[in-house]
């Protein structure tokens, strides 16, 4: 079909060029010797060396990774529950309001989420004395709140397209619902859980705005360090950091993609 529309093919290629040109230039200039990021003066890996000697940045990265991992784990539990509720319990009370509450964080401007959560945490501390001050806990609570919405979308689409005959057979044979969930449903939706976990992890690792509102002294995350450095102008060290992040992410996404692609092709072959 596509062959009949050469114009569409051209636009698709231009679109991909637009999407990848900045990323490629970022990677290339991370190996540039000059501090003037965009003037090429020879190949060098010295910015990577400097990156690994930058203590505040490494500390912030460690903080961010810790928050991201905890966040992803909590978000996957809450998100899966929400997805189950939305797909399976359509007649239940609270189904509709849950649907609205899960969609809204996906589009809500980050400045609003950040400010509103900060005001909540201040009021809560005033009323019940928890959470004490602001720091890792408050960032984590905030991240779980928006990450779980993304996890819900990912798991929901998998659950909605899942073949339910095996579950029903198990239930007919007398298996308890909880057992059916852990032995049949969970393994069947496992790929989407992995995708959801990774998505929640990267979302948390990437968040600047919300974390800035709800963080306290001593809880500086990686995006905050990157932001304050970037505000002063382009720096080759940030290019090196970006290249490392891009390398890790694209490897992970490529591996996941190849696995999913093979599964999809196998499924089509069987049909």
């Amino acid at each position, binding site marked *: 079909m*596509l062959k009949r*529309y050469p*114009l569409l093919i051209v*636009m*698709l290629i231009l679109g*991909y060029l*637009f999407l990848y*040109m*900045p*990323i490629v*230039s*970022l990677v290339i*200039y991370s190996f540039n010797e000059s501090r003037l990021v*965009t003037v090429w003066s020879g190949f060098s890996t010295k910015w990577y060396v400097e990156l690994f000697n930058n203590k505040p940045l490494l500390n912030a990265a460690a903080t961010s990774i810790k928050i991201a991992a905890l966040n992803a784990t909590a978000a996957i539990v*809450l998100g899966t*529950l*929400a997805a*189950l*509720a939305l797909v*399976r*319990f359509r007649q*239940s*009370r*609270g*189904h509709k309001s*849950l649907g609205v*509450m*899960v969609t809204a964080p996906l*589009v809500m*401007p*980050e*400045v*609003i989420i950040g*400010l*509103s*959560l900060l*005001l*909540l945490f*201040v009021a809560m501390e005033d009323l019940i004395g928890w959470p004490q001050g602001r720091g890792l806990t408050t960032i984590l609570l*905030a991240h*779980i*709140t928006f990450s779980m919405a993304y996890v*819900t979308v990912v798991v929901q689409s998998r659950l909605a397209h899942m073949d339910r005959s095996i*579950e*029903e057979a198990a*239930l007919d044979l007398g298996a*308890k619902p909880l057992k059916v969930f852990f032995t049949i449903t969970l393994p069947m939706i496992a790929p989407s859980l992995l995708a959801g976990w990774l998505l929640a992890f990267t979302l948390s690792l990437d968040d600047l705005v919300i974390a800035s509102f709800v963080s306290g002294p001593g809880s500086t995350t990686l995006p905050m360090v990157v*932001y304050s450095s*970037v*505000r002063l*102008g*382009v720096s080759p060290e940030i290019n090196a*950091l*970006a290249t490392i*992040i*891009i390398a890790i992410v*694209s490897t992970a*996404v490529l591996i996941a*993609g190849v696995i999913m*692609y093979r599964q999809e092709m196998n499924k089509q072959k069987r049909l």
Partner: protein
Amino acid sequence: MMSRLSWPTALRVPGRVWVIGAPWFWLALFFILPFLFVLKISLSEAVLAQPPYLDWVREVEDGMVLIQLNFGNYLMLWEDSLYLAALWGSFKVAAISTLICLLIGYPMAYAIALAPNHWRMPLLMLIILPFWTSFLIRVYAWMGILKDNGLINQVLMGMGLISEPLQILHTPVAVYIGVVYSYLPFLVLPLYATLIRLDNTLLEAAADLGCRPWKQFLTITLPQSVPGILAGSMLVFIPVMGEFVIPDLLGGPDTLMIGKLMWTEFFSNKDWPLASALASVLLVVLIIPFVLMRHYEQKTADNLG
């Protein structure tokens, strides 16, 4: 319906309550309740204290509670033209960028939907991949491309098209480029999902009757994809209205957007009540596009089964 068949009545009740209750209460507590505090603080007065606002319900002496509402923040938003200009600025950027995203994203989504079966997944992956790499870093990448001695100016000067570098970074153009670049995947994915599930029989019938491809597209494909277009557009429009990072890093001092202004009021001026009032106004403005989005999302879901 299915669940009524398969889940025994005795076990259904407690399990269900947990499954729906846990995420429901989490979101009610950490997503809905905070908005009430934003509204509350927006009606209070800024003071030099920790936290920097005066609670409007105060116990002055035994049994006496003083309620002092301050509408001054909203009055200020209305009277100082800066804030309305910022709201308009945000609207303009969000609306125009959504339109540009559509013009670039629709042909991309359509091309992927028409591509051979085994090509679709890799092509989609290529759309999603940049979305997974840090947002902040992708915005930063454009700083290196757009600045005075950046890639674009070097290429243009190298080709002899310009003799002096163009100022692109810290102008509105840079903001548009950044927004379109960052939000394009949000539009391509829902559009693709709509286009891939369209009924092809109408197209075949039209082709058999001698309808030209362009006319087929305009009279059959485009109208059928309207709900997807609207749902996807809101997915871009709503978050861009409150965008902070892009106008801050790529825009100039004259780039007025409401998210950036809120950030300044909060972090630089430490005026929490005014920032809250701005957030409340933005929230109210966004309700209409949000309702539209939900409506068309459900419509596409219903249509496509």
